[in-house]
C-alpha cells in the first residue's frame, strides 16, 4: 500500500531529533487520533538552515515528517510557508487516501514552527 519512497523515508528517516535553542518549534496533532509531530527549525538570515522532527505516529506520519524536513531545509521562510501537504505527498510518490491527513500534519507542523519563530522575532523587537 505504501510507495518505495514512503518505505525508504520510514525506514531511514532524515532529520530525526531536536534542535537545542531552536529558532522556532511547533507541535501539532494529538494522541487521540494517533499522530503527534514536533518540528524544530533553526533560522539564520531568513533561511531555514536546520530542521529536526520527532513524531509519534504511523509509517506515513514518520515518512511525511522526514520528507517535509528535507523539502524546507535551506529554504527561505517565505518558500517554506508555500509548502503544501499535496507537495509532500507527491514527493513521496503518493500516499493512500486514508493517510493524506498525515501529510496535512507535516504541513501544519512546519507552519507552527515558523509561526513560533515569527512570534519570538516580534517579541525580541
Amino acid at each position: 500500500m505504501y510507495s518505495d519512497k514512503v518505505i525508504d523515508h520510514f525506514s531511514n528517516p532524515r532529520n530525526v531529533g531536536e534542535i537545542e535553542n531552536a529558532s522556532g518549534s511547533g507541535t501539532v496533532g494529538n494522541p487521540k487520533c494517533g499522530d503527534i509531530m514536533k518540528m524544530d527549525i533553526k533560522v539564520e538570515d531568513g533561511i531555514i538552515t536546520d530542521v529536526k522532527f520527532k513524531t509519534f505516529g504511523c509509517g506515513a506520519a514518520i515518512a511525511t515528517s522526514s520528507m517535509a524536513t528535507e523539502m524546507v531545509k535551506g529554504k527561505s521562510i517565505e518558500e517554506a510557508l508555500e509548502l503544501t501537504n499535496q507537495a509532500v505527498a507527491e514527493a513521496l510518490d503518493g500516499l493512500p487516501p486514508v493517510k493524506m491527513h498525515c501529510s496535512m500534519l507535516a504541513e501544519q507542523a512546519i507552519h507552527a514552527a515558523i509561526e513560533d519563530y515569527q512570534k519570538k522575532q516580534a517579541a525580541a523587537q
Partner: protein
Amino acid sequence: MNTIYLDNAATTAVSPEVLQAMLPYFTEHYGNPSSVHATGRDARKAIEAARRQVAAAIGADPAEIYFTAGGSESDNWAIKGAAFMNRRKGNHIITTAIEHHAVLHTCGWLEKQGFEVTYLPVDAEGRVTPEQVEAAITDKTILITIMAANNEIGTLEPIAEIGKIAKAHKILFHTDAVQAVGAIPLDVKAMNIDMLSMSAHKFHGPKGIGVLYIRKGVRIDTLIHGGAQERGQRAGTENLAGIVGLGKAIEIATTDLPAKAARLSALRDRLIDGILERVPDVRVNGPREGRLPNNANVSVRYIEGESMLLRLDLAGIAASSGSACTSGSLDPSHVLLAIGLPHEVAHGSLRMTLGSETTEAEIDRVLEVLPGIISDLRSMSVLNKDTSTVTDEVFYHGKK
C-alpha cells in the same frame, strides 16, 4: 527469508491435508448436491460427512449444523433470525461492547428496526461476568449473544455460565466462536449454547465457508431465501469443496486439542514474558490466565502500532495492531477502548497470534528483533515519560 506469520487470528493457511481433501470436489465430484444423479449423490454424501465431522467436534447432532458463507453470515443469521422470529415475545438483546463488528453492527442495525440492545461493559481484562448478564435480563429479552473468545485481546468469556443463565431464563443464547473453535474445547450441549458461529479459515480451512449451529427445537427466521438447501433454512447451492475442507479442517483442529493448546500457550507465554523482560513500559492487553492459547497482545508505550507493524514486516514478521492507522478510521480498536485504555495506549497496541506452524525459533527471532524496533521508534517519537498524556499505572497492569 521466510515470513514469520503471527497473524493467525486474521486468517490461517489452508493445511495440505485439507487442500488434498478438497481438490477432488472441484473437478471429479463436482456435482450439485441437490441433483438426483450419481454425480449429485456423491456430492451430497461428502456434505453429510462434513456435517458429521463438525457435529462431532462441538458435541452437536449433524442435523443441527448449517453451512454458511462464513462467520459474518453466521452471526448475521443467528442474531437477525432470532430477533425477528421472537419479536412478538420481546425486543431486547444482550451483548457486550467487545464483540466482533459482525455482531456489533448487526445489533446496531436491529436498533434501527426497533430492537433494544444492551452492550455490557467489560472489566480491564475484557471479561464480562455471568452476574452482569443476569442483571441485564428483562421480560423483553429474547437473545443473549456473547463471544466465546475475543479476537483482539484473546479473553475467554464465561460462556458455560452464561449458557446456564440463558437456559434458566428461557432466553436464546448465541456465541460467536470464530476464534474459539479449534483453540479451546467446546461442547454446545454441556455449555447450553443454542447457536454458535464458526469460520473455517480461522482453523486452517478455506475462506468463504462457515457454520451456524442451531440447537434442535430452536427456530429462527431465514436470512438467505431461495432453494431448499440446508433443510430449507439457508438457500444457495452448497460450497461443496469449501464444506469438505471445513469438515477436514475442524477434524484436524480438534484432534489432540489439549496438547496443541498447551504447546501454543507455552509459546505464547514465552513471547509475552520475553517482551516484558526485554522492553520497558509495555503492558499486556487481556488476561494472563483465561486467554486464547495463541493470542499475545501488548501495548508499547510512546509509539504507534502501525509503525511497529511496518518495521516488523520489513524484518519478515507479520503481525497486526488495533491502532487507528490499521483500521482506516481515526479511532483505535473498540475493544482496547472498552477495556479502558487511553487512546495513546490503544494506538500503541501490537497483536501477535500464533498458529500450528509457529516454532520456538520463530518466537525467539521476534524477541531478538522487536526490542530494537521499539527503541528505534521510541528514539524518534515525540512522546516520552515527560510528554505522555497517560499515567504510569496503565503500564503496571498485566505484568506477572
